[in-house]
């Protein structure tokens, strides 16, 4: 059985690859390359899998919220993804790379009995990225 919990955070970013010329960056990333960055209200769905324990839950909601709160939201919410998140220092903070970084941060810190199985993140309602854990 799977359980999915939704979290939200707001962050700014700028898509730019220093190894490429300004023209190439502009062509590749369009408005996302504007020099001072911009932000999104990200929606993060985290899915865990397991069997319900004696409490009838596969995961304790508070424990999951504490872990995601400490390891993800406190580090990303109201932050600049390019400057404030070491995991994204060397790669452009596309939502693909952000999803991958979040999965890595969660896998490293995971202490819950239910298995982490999926990370799904939307940058806007129109762009959604999903990664199996």
């Amino acid at each position, binding site marked *: *059985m799977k*359980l*999915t*919990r*939704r979290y939200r955070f707001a962050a700014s970013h700028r898509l730019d690859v220093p190894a490429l010329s300004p023209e190439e960056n502009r062509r590749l990333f369009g408005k996302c390359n504007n020099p001072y960055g911009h932000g999104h209200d990200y929606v993060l769905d985290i899915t865990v899998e397991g069997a*319900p324990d004696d409490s*009838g*839950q596969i995961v304790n909601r508070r424990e999951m919220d504490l872990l995601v709160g400490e390891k993800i939201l406190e580090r990303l919410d109201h932050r600049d993804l390019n400057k404030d998140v070491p995991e994204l220092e060397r790669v452009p903070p596309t939502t693909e790379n952000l999803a991958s970084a979040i999965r890595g941060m969660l896998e490293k810190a995971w202490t819950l009995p239910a298995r982490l199985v999926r990370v799904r993140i939307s940058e806007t309602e129109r762009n959604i990225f999903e990664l199996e854990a």
Partner: protein
Amino acid sequence: MYLTRKAEFSASHVCANPTLDEAENRRIYGAASNPNGHGHNYIVEVTVEGEADPVTGMVFDLRELKEILNREVIEPMDHRFLNREVAPFDKIVPTTENLAIEIWRRLRPSIDRENARLKNVRLYETADLFVDYGGEA
């Protein structure tokens, strides 16, 4: 091919194990253990797997699926206090997990047939929390 039908019901519940004390229930279930209960607008998405019938072009008759959902889930649960009015939640804690399992158990006998079977029950407790149950032991 998968076909999914959605339905809603509103119900109240308390998540607390009567054999545990109040502090322990609060530790496990948080505010959901408040003794007089609270409610949710549940959304259930029922997914049926099958092949489209060569004559009707349908995996499952949607009208029949709606009737099954109404009879087995919506009518017994809508605007009810789950712990007090809907078995087996007088005996087991109506967490979203247990509720999804119970909905599966109620629906499957009416849905499973030669060319179609119940594939998944997705139950949203709120927009921010849902479970998927596919009959796992």
